[in-house]
């Protein structure tokens, strides 16, 4: 029973016509997609001379009976849809029934196919005309060979590039397919030499490692998130690696590789404040959403889709990537991931019990002299009967130690973990300052003895330009003629804060800076002040301070990275240690 039927012309007209066959890579794409539509689990691709001489795609899919095999070469013959409404929510790559006829019309095509092992059909065609139909015994599946592409279309022939460049385009095309369908085994040979061997992969990471090597895979962070009906999965580059290698972009919607600058922008927005402006991350993302929410038929090569409602999709992408960066494997070790997934939303969560600022208990010789003073200990004791928050669950803080007066270290199930105290604190303060700049004024502690600062001309200019924002952050400053400032009140982000030095360093860092836009200026200022205000490497921290920092870091939206994109958390796995000790 033939499965292919010629579409009524009304349907045919509804389907966007277009240049299906542009170059060898488009032939590869169409043939491979047909193989996937046929349910192939293994596809072998052989290319000669960059595809200019020959392209052969063999699959172990459903195959075709003889009638279908012949019909497949005629225009708008498809087994995949019958009427226009089938297009809504289409799950297959093909639906127009125009790829094979289009390819066939500009090449010599040889189709060998069998719906079951044994008796099959061979159809030979050239320039769109079937030349012969014969028996061919073969295994279930289809092998289509396209040779002498554009041999009868001299205008197109002229536009083909050299073999290298066509080959590169084919590799790009196949990369997209390989990422979209990780379950399928794919092999590729070029001029007889094996170029890619991709076994079926259980994870994105495994497929990426097979494509680009294990090192490339290690630079990527898992994304896996659900927002309403939208699921976002994949891998994105961890911020500290952005800019260190080739940038790659892969986007798929319902398994179909697409281009979509809007989604790329949304994913990039999630990197805000973790990487320097201008650097662009590798993004490999696959979205799954109800078929009725996407229209795939807007582009001749099906490279674009239209979303019924684009906004929630972009938001889902941004949120998923942001959470992935925030909850990188490393961050998971400070308990962030489980906490977030339990909350199931992306609101900056109120920090659970046990979170205080960096406090100074235990640092000033806490002898009996100070025992009488109302210590933080007492305030904490008072603070304890806070109504037990139903959610989020209290953050468990493991025993912490400080190494090199720089790293806060602790043991985790999977290894030992180090937090860079400066980077971590910088992240905490950055988010706090951004909140202050965007939402309102920060508390300012008035000073008994106002600070006097003498500035150079450049610093004065930086001060004038940022005066209002500095004020919002809690610096109350009077210009005192010339380049002298009187500071009457200062923010107190933590007890060791040195406002004078912070202000000086900040103004110094802001000199010559011309940032017009509000948000960018906020970010720059918050980042600068955070960097200058954060505790430094080399400062001994008390246990309470370490615990407070740990908790505050866990409460940030992007705990794993500081504002420069450097890692705040590094983990050394037990397996690594065991390897070094020769235990395995």
């Amino acid at each position, binding site marked *: 029973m033939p499965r292919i039927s010629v579409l009524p012309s009304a349907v045919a007209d509804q389907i966007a016509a277009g240049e299906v066959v542009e170059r060898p890579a488009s032939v590869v794409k169409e043939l491979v997609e047909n193989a996937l539509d046929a349910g192939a689990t293994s596809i072998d691709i052989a290319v000669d001379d960059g595809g200019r001489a020959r392209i052969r795609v063999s699959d172990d899919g459903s195959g075709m009976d003889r009638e279908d095999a012949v019909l497949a070469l005629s225009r708008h013959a498809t087994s995949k849809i019958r009427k226009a409404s089938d297009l809504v929510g289409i799950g297959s790559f093909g639906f127009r029934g125009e790829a094979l006829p289009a390819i066939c019309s500009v090449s010599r095509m040889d189709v060998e196919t069998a719906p079951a092992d044994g008796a099959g059909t061979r159809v030979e065609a050239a320039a769109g005309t079937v030349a012969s139909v014969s028996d061919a015994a073969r295994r279930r599946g289809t092998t289509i060979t396209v040779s002498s592409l554009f041999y009868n279309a001299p205008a197109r022939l002229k536009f083909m590039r050299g073999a290298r460049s066509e080959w590169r385009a084919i590799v790009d095309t196949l990369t997209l397919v390989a990422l979209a369908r990780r379950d399928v085994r794919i092999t590729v040979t070029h001029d007889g030499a094996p170029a890619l061997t991709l076994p079926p992969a259980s994870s994105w990471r495994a497929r990426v490692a097979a494509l680009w090597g294990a090192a490339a895979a290690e630079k990527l962070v898992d994304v896996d998130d659900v927002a309403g009906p939208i699921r976002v999965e994949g891998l994105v580059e961890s911020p500290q690696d952005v800019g260190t290698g080739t940038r790659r972009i892969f986007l798929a919607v319902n398994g179909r590789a697409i281009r979509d600058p809007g989604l790329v922008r949304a994913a990039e927005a999630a990197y805000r404040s973790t990487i320097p402006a201008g650097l662009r991350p590798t993004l490999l993302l696959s979205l799954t959403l109800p078929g009725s929410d996407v229209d795939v038929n807007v582009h001749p090569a099906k490279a674009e889709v239209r979303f019924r409602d684009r906004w929630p999709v972009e938001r889902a992408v941004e949120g998923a990537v942001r959470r992935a960066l925030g909850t990188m494997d490393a961050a998971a070790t400070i308990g962030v991931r489980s906490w977030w997934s339990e909350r199931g939303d992306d609101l*900056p969560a*109120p*920090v659970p019990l046990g*979170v*205080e*600022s960096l406090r*100074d208990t235990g*640092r*000033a*010789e806490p*002898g*009996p*002299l*100070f025992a*009488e*003073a*109302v210590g*933080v200990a*007492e*305030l904490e004791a*008072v*603070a304890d*009967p*806070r109504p037990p928050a139903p959610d989020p669950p209290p953050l468990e803080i493991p025993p912490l130690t400080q190494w090199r007066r720089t790293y806060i270290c602790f043991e985790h199930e999977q290894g030992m973990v180090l937090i860079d105290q400066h980077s971590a604190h910088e992240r905490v303060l950055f988010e706090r300052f951004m909140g202050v700049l965007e*939402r*309102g*004024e920060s*508390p*300012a*502690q*008035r*000073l*008994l*003895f106002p600070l006097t600062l003498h500035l150079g001309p450049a610093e004065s200019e930086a001060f004038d330009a940022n005066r209002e924002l500095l004020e919002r952050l*809690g610096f*109350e400053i009077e210009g005192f003629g010339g380049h002298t400032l009187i500071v*009457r*009140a200062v923010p*107190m*982000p*933590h*007890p*060791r804060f*040195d406002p*004078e*030095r912070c202000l000086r360093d900040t103004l110094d860092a802001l000199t010559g800076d011309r940032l017009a836009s509000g948000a960018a200026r906020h970010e720059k200022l918050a980042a600068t002040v955070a960097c200058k205000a954060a505790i430094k490497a080399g400062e001994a921290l008390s246990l309470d301070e370490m615990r*407070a920092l740990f908790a505050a870091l866990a409460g940030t939206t992007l705990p794993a990275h500081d504002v420069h994109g450097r890692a705040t958390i590094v983990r050394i796995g037990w397996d690594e240690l065991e390897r070094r000790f020769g235990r395995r």
Partner: protein
Amino acid sequence: MRFTITREKLQEGLAAVAASIPAKTTLPVLANILVETTEKGIRLSGTDLDIAVSTEISADVETGGAITIPAKKLSEIARELPPAPVRVASSGEQRVTLDCGRAHFRLLGLPRDEFPSFPSIKFSESWRVRSGELQKLISHTAFAVSTEESRPILNGVLWELRPDMMRMVATNGHRLAKMQVPIKSSGMPSADLIVPPKALEQIRRLFPADEELEIARGENHLGFRSPFTAVYTRLIEGPYPNYEQVIPKDNDKVAIADKAALTSALKRMSVIASDQTHRIRMSFNAGMAKFSVQTPDLGDAQDELAVRFTGDPLDIGFNASYLLEILRFIPTDEVRMTFRAPERAATLEPEQWSDPAQYLCLVMPLRLVD
């Protein structure tokens, strides 16, 4: 060196000196206690180079001499000794034996020459102060010192000695505590000393309240001495900021409140106050103080307290922990607070204190956000 001492005397002497031994040091001899014989007994000394403590205890000296002994081990041994006289003898520069009952210890010490010499201070010219007065000043002011390294001067307590009174002032730039007591003139010149609080804590701990102390100054050091015990400390170089200038003279709003009730109200508000700034708002109106606190992501709280208030109504923000801290040291049941404006310093003082001492604390407000 050979002497015999009671177990109790040895323990007492070690306890006095032990606190001056640094827990960690790069100079090994600082982990040791210097033991020297004197005419009446022995002298034990320890130092961390900032502070030095030395105390004399009675003992029967057979042969004079000196040696340094690991402080921690010596204290641990002294604690475990049976109730019997302790015989200590050194052989050579580094070896020391200790016998008590049938217990016998041999320890490896370090030669006395390695022990740093104490600052040379001439007690011929000295102030004389009753230890109890000094303790009172220390315990009411030293809490307010800064622990930040950015302004080292504020890490010390200012001690002003005048012919007829002495005064201590400490501040971290946000709040300040000041106390003065009258003294009998000693005929000594006035002096302004900036003393590390760690040393003051030793003073407070080591000398009984009724003892009269001799206090004398070396080049960068200060010495405190009673007949048996001496403490030396490094001084912090001045000048101390002009605190007189920031003490408000024109605060025209006065609130008098019950200290205990105010303390509990503040503690209640602190539960909700932000962890960084402990910011609370206080609104004073005739007869009433209203407290409120609002912390994003957490919640808010309000409370009220009857107070005696005179002056125009006022809204002012504070770090609650600064207020609570000061209230702990206010010696009376009622506290007197004065204000001028939401951005000006507030004062806290004891109300109706029948004591020759004068005590005043200042707190700078926090900016309120509406």
